[in-house]
């Protein structure tokens, strides 16, 4: 899922400085699961913003809503009936949701309340870690199910750099070396010979460097 975390409250306050009537929109999708933008966070952030503004002596009215998903057009309609009564929307969905809202409600300024960080997993309750950089060219079949693009700080494709020591990464000694993990996993699987297969230079055209990507399924299109 998409993992995000709340922006510092002072940054948000700065963004909405000039408004006194806003919508705070959460999302019941990924950001609920990673506790960044669900209904609970909507309540807490709204309360915090009101407190801050009360402290500044500047009134603010906040309409609290949680949309089913901000990345599907139908769900964005949930706020259509009252959106014009408000000066701005603060969305705590992922970057996709924020943009989609902005596209849908062109007249209303949209602000992001969270930073969208990565595609990842719940490592344990309260801990999320990155697993995928959506490069569009999956190589997990070659690397024992561990992504070198994501897990190696340098996204190396053919083994570790010279900075791998004691299984840790030189970029951040607290991070496990991606290639050490790949090696260990392959060894466990009895497939160490995979290590010798040279992975060719990556084709980054499928990745984000080539501009916004698009997938069309003709069979599904209406």
């Amino acid at each position, binding site marked *: 899922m998409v993992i995000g975390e709340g922006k510092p409250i002072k940054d948000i306050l700065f963004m909405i400085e000039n408004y006194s009537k806003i919508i705070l929109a959460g999302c019941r999708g990924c950001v609920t699961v990673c506790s960044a933008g669900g209904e609970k966070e909507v309540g807490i952030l709204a309360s915090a913003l009101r407190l*801050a503004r009360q402290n500044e002596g500047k009134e603010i009215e906040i309409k609290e809503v949680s949309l089913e998903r901000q990345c599907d057009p139908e769900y964005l309609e949930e706020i259509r009936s009252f959106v014009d009564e408000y000066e701005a929307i603060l969305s705590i969905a992922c970057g996709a949701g924020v943009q989609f809202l902005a596209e849908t409600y062109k007249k209303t300024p949209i602000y992001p309340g969270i930073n969208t960080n990565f595609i990842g997993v719940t490592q344990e309750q309260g801990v999320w870690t990155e697993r995928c950089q959506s490069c569009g060219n999956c190589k997990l079949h070659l690397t024992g199910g561990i992504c070198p693009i994501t897990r190696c700080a340098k996204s190396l494709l053919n083994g570790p750099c010279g900075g791998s020591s004691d299984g840790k990464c030189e970029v951040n000694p607290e991070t496990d070396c991606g290639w050490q993990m790949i090696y260990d996993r392959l060894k466990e699987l009895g497939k160490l010979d995979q290590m010798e297969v040279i992975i060719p230079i990556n084709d980054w055209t499928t990745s984000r460097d080539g501009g916004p990507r698009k997938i069309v399924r003709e069979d599904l299109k209406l």
Partner: protein
Amino acid sequence: MRLSYPTNIKIIKLPCTGKIDVLYLLKAFENGADGVYVAGCMEGDCHYLTGNLRARKRVEYAKKILDEVGIGGERLAMYNMSAAQGPRFVEVANEMTERIKELGPSPIKRKSTVKGSK
């Protein structure tokens, strides 16, 4: 025991401090509290096993938010005490009252009142 404590202490009862929501803490300040404290069981003695340990973490989180919005995290505290410790309850009530008196009224009360909607 009927030990006396300051009248400004008002209690909102929860089944366990594990039910404490960061939102309740913030809302209390929004509604006009000058200080809030959570009184939980002694650590290790939670009737529901770990509620008071979870509560302490949430209180810490809420303190951080209160710092960020300029209310001040020192207006929020968590104390552990057992039902048998009447004098401890009074001691905490006095300690917290003193602390809040020193800090003065909540900064938002010195400003204009603000409307919110949900």
